[in-house]
């Protein structure tokens, strides 16, 4: 099965991080990504620019409406994702728990829909 692992974390806290800690975190992400590439679980993964760069788009009555910012204001914001191949939910949970961001933020594990 394929799962999308959505990484949520508090942007305000993240922006306060020291340069050393930032480097450490990015090294940890690098190591994690390498490990799931080698184990064959990695399908895709990216980090996202902060929500201050987000634009939300709606179409109402045929008109395109754009607003500044994310769809919903929440305590934690989407900051990146991995698309992984996993045997079952337990394997996906185990992988999600190894994402460095899981220690401060949270990871939402969503199965990918299969169209028959």
């Amino acid at each position, binding site marked *: 099965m394929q799962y999308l692992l959505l990484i949520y974390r508090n942007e305000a806290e993240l922006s306060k991080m020291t340069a050393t800690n930032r480097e450490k975190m990015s090294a940890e992400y690098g190591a994690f990504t390498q490990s799931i590439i080698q184990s064959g679980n990695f399908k895709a993964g990216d980090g996202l620019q902060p929500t201050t760069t987000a634009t939300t788009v709606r179409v109402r009555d045929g008109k395109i409406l754009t607003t500044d910012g994310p769809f919903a204001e929440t305590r934690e914001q989407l900051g990146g994702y991995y698309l992984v191949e996993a045997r*079952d*939910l337990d394997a996906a949970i185990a992988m999600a728990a190894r994402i460095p961001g899981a220690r401060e933020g949270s990871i939402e594990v969503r199965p990918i829909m299969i169209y028959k």
Partner: protein
Amino acid sequence: MTPSAEIDRIFRDEAGRALATLIRLVGDFDLAEEALQDAFAVALARWPACEMPDNPRAWLVNVARNKAIDRIRRQATFRGKQQQLVHELELDARADDDPPAMLDDDMLRLIFTCCHPALAAEVQVALTLRTVCGLSTAQVARAFLVGEEAMAQRLVRARQKIRLAGIPYEVPERDALEPRLNGALAVIYLVFTEGYVATSGADLMRPDLAVEAIRLGRLLDRLIPGRAEIKGLLALMLLHDARRAGRETGAGDIVLLEEQDRALWDRAQIEEGLGLVEAALRVPGRPQPYAVQAAIAALHARAPGWAQTDWPQIAGLYEVLLRISPSPVIELNHAAAVSMVDGPARALDLVNAIAARGGLDGYELLPAVRADLLRRLGRTQEARQAYVAATAATQLEPLRRLYARRLAELGV
């Protein structure tokens, strides 16, 4: 027993096992459940007229397996997928009579799937009662005090999540077993406590739920032998449940432990519980919370009366519990035991300290324990206020009547 009552009993006893095996064979919760319902319908039509099969479970599994194949075939004709037919052939190949060890594994797989932490705690309990215990959706709905339609929806969504999210149908591996086992035991204990003291309603107890929980505890103890936490929980449930007949009057009023007629307690069940407590405490390793709680229940069960109870040891065991699994509820129980050792004044200090920290805001037994201590201290006016607060905090009719009795005794 009438034939239909006998058939009902067989369905009830075999539903969990049959479903557990079917899920393994067909690899799908929903399909297995539907196929088993089909098989029950066939049994209801056939069994009363002719002789019952020697092995009703094997009969049900075989009929349900064929029903599942029919359902797959019907789907396959409009989907036209070869894959379905391959699956079907596999189904035929794996349907030999299974050895008992395989059946036990099926049951364990089913329990661990229903108690998967990716499902909400309430959903885990509902799913366990429905699929492992074989309660009907209506019965599960009654246990949760919700409508049958709402419960059916909740169960459908749960089974959907199992399928779509890929919740595995397997016993967790060694290093994952411990937390998952604790989760399963927590579900069983939730079923039991709801049966022991209902959250709300007219009746203090729901013995059917307590009986189901004990059945599950026995099953787990047999399937995963030698685990102190399982033996401890089973002992705890048996010892509590053994007092059932003494815990309420014919009119459904609560009889507190101190006033219970101990001759009404189920001695055979107490003996079984005591044996399990000892077995649990003998297992090497650090003490398990359920085993310690069971040891406390054992001291109550052994005592000839309220006054002759070994209160210092009970207070000491609560202190052990506070070290290994601290919680405000344990603190409250500890305070109640302390009141029997050092008197109600010292216990009241402890209870007031718990209340001041706010950890038990909204916990309905906090004002009740305070009220009892104030009453024993002769602080009538404050006791009255506490009983009024306790009455407002509970949804359970027999508890309300108990507090009303206390208020009447206090006069004022």
